[in-house]
């Protein structure tokens, strides 16, 4: 819990700094975040390689976890379909296109802005940013309430990169492999899914 609060504070401080233009989000910040991400992934790799029990633990994983990406996709699309009763302005294909971004906000918002207009594109950006932030902030809570698979599932397509460290820390390193598999598979599916629902 303490960890989540600190994370939220850093994120909120960043929002305020960006909004107040105290520090510009410029080329340097972008480069810095890319290098930090690479460094982070390197360290996650080190902790995976360093863990002597990892291979043994991996064998203990139930092979049924391979189904997880399918469950994530089915749950996401099913859940978003329920919103057409609340959001009268958008069609079923609109909400399916937005939710099939699966947290991959940059790509899905660009696609949707292109095919369905800027308004839905911005919704896709916000919706999928929210999904990523929710995963980063609430992974420990979701872990306690719904178990390790849900922690991976909420990350959607981001579980092989940006949300991998938080998943490894909350669900344990043996789930890192599941997260990478889940993230890679969904990552590749996002462009196909988004274009599919845009063309409906």
């Amino acid at each position: 819990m303490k960890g989540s609060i600190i994370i939220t504070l850093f994120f909120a401080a960043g929002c305020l700094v960006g909004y107040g233009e105290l520090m510009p989000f410029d080329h340097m910040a972008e480069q810095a975040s890319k290098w930090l991400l690479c460094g982070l992934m390197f360290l996650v790799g080190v902790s995976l390689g360093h863990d002597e029990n990892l291979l043994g633990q991996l064998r203990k994983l139930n092979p049924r976890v391979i189904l997880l990406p399918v469950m994530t996709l089915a749950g996401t699309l099913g859940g978003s379909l329920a919103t057409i009763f609340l959001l009268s302005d958008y069609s079923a294909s609109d909400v399916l296109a937005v939710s099939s971004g699966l947290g991959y906000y940059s790509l899905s918002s660009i696609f949707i802005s292109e095919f369905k207009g800027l308004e839905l594109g911005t919704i896709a950006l916000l919706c999928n940013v929210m999904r990523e932030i929710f995963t980063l902030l609430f992974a420990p809570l979701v872990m306690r309430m719904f178990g390790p698979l849900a922690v991976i599932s909420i990350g959607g397509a981001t579980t092989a990169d940006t949300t991998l460290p938080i998943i490894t820390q909350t669900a344990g390193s043996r789930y890192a492999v599941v997260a990478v598999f889940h993230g890679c598979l969904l990552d590749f599916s996002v462009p196909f899914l988004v274009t599919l629902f845009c063309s409906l």
Partner: protein
Amino acid sequence: MPTNCCNCASTRAGHIANEEAVIKVYVAIVLGIVVGRLLRKRPMLFLSRVVMAIIWALLFILGIEIGANPEIVGGFGKIGTSAFVIFAFSTLGSILASWLLWRVIRKSEQRQ
């Protein structure tokens, strides 16, 4: 008035050109696994602390990116509400679906 408006454009272009960055990330993780294997005999208790510190820094920068993006800040009316509703329901759906799988797996393991 000096605006930061070029930010959003450059960020978007940056995201499109992300393929290269993604490859770098995977190279980094593989390199890390190799280094971790080599240093297996040494205790590395500081590792999770450094990981946490980098996560804080990255979220701070993500916050700056979001706070400085007028499209996102200005969109927190109707657009923001719609985005939140779709986010909440789709995430809840995926939580329930994965929880179901988790329960099936746990049950089959208890039976063994």
